[in-house]
């Protein structure tokens, strides 16, 4: 049998050429030759082949793109690694060359790095354990440090504390430590901490406090003598019936009291700043205290008419002297900032669970934009006549602190030119 195959194009439908396979088979039989021709339509096969070729080409292209991408990726990783290395080196270079202790800790708060300054300061040669920092803390600071640090780590919040670190020579110096969590997806990853030596500043503050304390003691001593002699003289003049001289001496006495208040204010401010402003609590009658203070303060406001309009009285729990100091400060200010021929009104009002004291004057008033500032330290009313008002601007600052510490409200209602009403409100008992 003989076979032969050939591909040719035959005109198909619409005379479009169609690829076909012609297969010839010849077979010798007894007395002649049998011939068969098979025509196979190849158009589907050709089409598939064509598609396959195309797919292959696409695949090759994709492979080449992937190759390129890989190369790029490798390059990027290389660059990033370099950058990271550089950035770490930069961080270390920076950290090692600043005069501040720098450390880092992991997410659990375990310290894993100290800069050079740490080793210089502590005299250690290398990191010994994660407890190195704790070992250098002053015994009295350890408990608080641990509590604050653990809280910061658990909550992921910044850490801050003033404490002492032991130096290589055994001396303890005050440091201000501050650490921030570096976060990724809101979770702390690394803690960056710095501890700044503030020993010189701390000692300066201590010296300043000591100076104020000594100065106020030394200032009070001659004031005590002057006041004493003035009072004895006044007593003697009164006994002799020389009332004019006695009256003059009582004015001197009032001025001495002002001086003595100024000295106490300076001390009070120092105590507020240091958190040493102490209160001596007792239960007392509110109106009784007010009447006493009005009488006392009024004595210094010669020729001023103070009108008392008191509501029903109640017991109040607090530091009687210090609350009295607030009332006295309000009345003093009212006298200072209003003309001599105007009244000063002292009112109390029971308001639910609270008892309120108000001191109203009919003076210059305080412009709205300055009202929020009156309770700040060293605030003084400014205006054309500012030079005529004496004082350090501490009274209302101290008053606000006193009321705040009694969990009360303090405030004022005022219009420029229409006078002011200063008030405070405290919880009443029963």
């Amino acid at each position, binding site marked *: 049998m003989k076979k032969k195959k050939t591909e040719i194009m035959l005109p198909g439908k619409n005379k479009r050429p169609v690829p076909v396979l012609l297969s010839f088979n010849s077979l010798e039989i007894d007395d002649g030759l049998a011939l068969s021709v098979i025509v196979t339509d190849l158009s589907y096969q050709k089409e598939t082949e064509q598609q396959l070729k195309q797919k292959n080409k696409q695949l090759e292209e994709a492979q080449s793109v992937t190759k390129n991408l890989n190369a790029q990726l490798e390059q990027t990783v290389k660059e990033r690694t370099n950058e990271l290395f550089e950035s770490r080196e930069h961080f270390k270079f920076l950290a090692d060359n600043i005069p501040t202790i720098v450390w880092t800790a992991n997410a659990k708060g375990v310290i894993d790095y100290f800069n050079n300054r740490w080793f210089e300061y502590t005299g250690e040669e290398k990191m010994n354990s994660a407890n190195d920092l704790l070992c250098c803390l002053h015994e009295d600071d350890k408990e608080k440090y641990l509590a604050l640090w653990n809280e910061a780590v658990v909550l992921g919040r910044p850490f801050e504390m003033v404490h002492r670190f032991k130096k290589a020579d055994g001396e303890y110096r005050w440091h201000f430590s501050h650490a921030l969590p570096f976060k990724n997806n809101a979770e702390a990853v690394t803690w960056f901490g710095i501890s700044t030596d503030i020993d010189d500043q701390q000692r300066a503050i201590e010296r300043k406090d000591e100076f104020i*304390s000594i100065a*106020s*003691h030394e200032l*009070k*001593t001659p*004031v*005590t*003598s002057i*006041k*004493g*002699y003035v*009072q*004895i003289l006044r*007593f003697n003049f009164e006994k002799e019936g020389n009332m004019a001289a006695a009256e003059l001496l009582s004015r001197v006495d009032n001025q*001495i009291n002002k001086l*003595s208040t100024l000295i*106490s204010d300076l*001390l009070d401010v120092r*105590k507020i700043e240091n958190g040493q402003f*102490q209160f*001596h609590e007792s239960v007392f009658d509110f109106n009784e205290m007010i009447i006493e203070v009005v009488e006392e303060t009024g004595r210094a406001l010669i020729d001023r008419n103070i009108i008392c309009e008191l509501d029903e009285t109640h017991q109040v729990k607090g530091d009687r002297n210090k609350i009295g100091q607030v009332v006295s400060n309000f009345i003093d200010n009212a006298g200072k900032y209003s003309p001599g021929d105007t009244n000063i009104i002292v009112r109390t009002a029971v308001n639910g669970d609270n008892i309120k004291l108000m001191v109203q004057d009919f003076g210059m008033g305080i412009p709205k934009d300055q009202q929020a500032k009156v309770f700040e330290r060293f605030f003084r009313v400014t205006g054309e006549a500012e030079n005529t008002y004496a004082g350090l601007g501490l009274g209302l600052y101290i008053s606000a602190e006193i009321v705040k510490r009694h969990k009360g409200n303090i405030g004022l209602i005022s219009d420029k030119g229409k006078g002011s009403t200063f008030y405070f409100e405290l919880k009443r008992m029963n």
Partner: protein
Amino acid sequence: MATGKRKKIFIADDDKDILQIMHLMLQTKAYDVETTCNAKNIFEFGKELPDLILLDIWMSGVDGREICNQLKKNERTKNIPVVFISANSNIKKIAEQYHADAYIAKPFEMDYFLNKIDEILEAARPEEPADM
């Protein structure tokens, strides 16, 4: 006074002016006053103990707090009322800590000073032996 005898007040302060002032003030009330600007002499009372001691806290060379401590430890002097009188701003706390009977802050009002002393002497009276 019930006993007919003038009360004796002992003052220790290192400032002579303040000693004189307190002396003059107390004289207006007919008290016997003895003063010293050297508080080291305070334990040399002799036979007759004072009825009240006014004590400065911050004296040159002597610590008023320590003196109060010793007075209160001494069987003979422990019942004499001790009043701290000082310009120290923590006078109230110091008075409580060292078991002083009262305190007067400097500068003080003459009326307040005299009333306070009357008050303390009045309160101290029941502890004295009954009148014969």
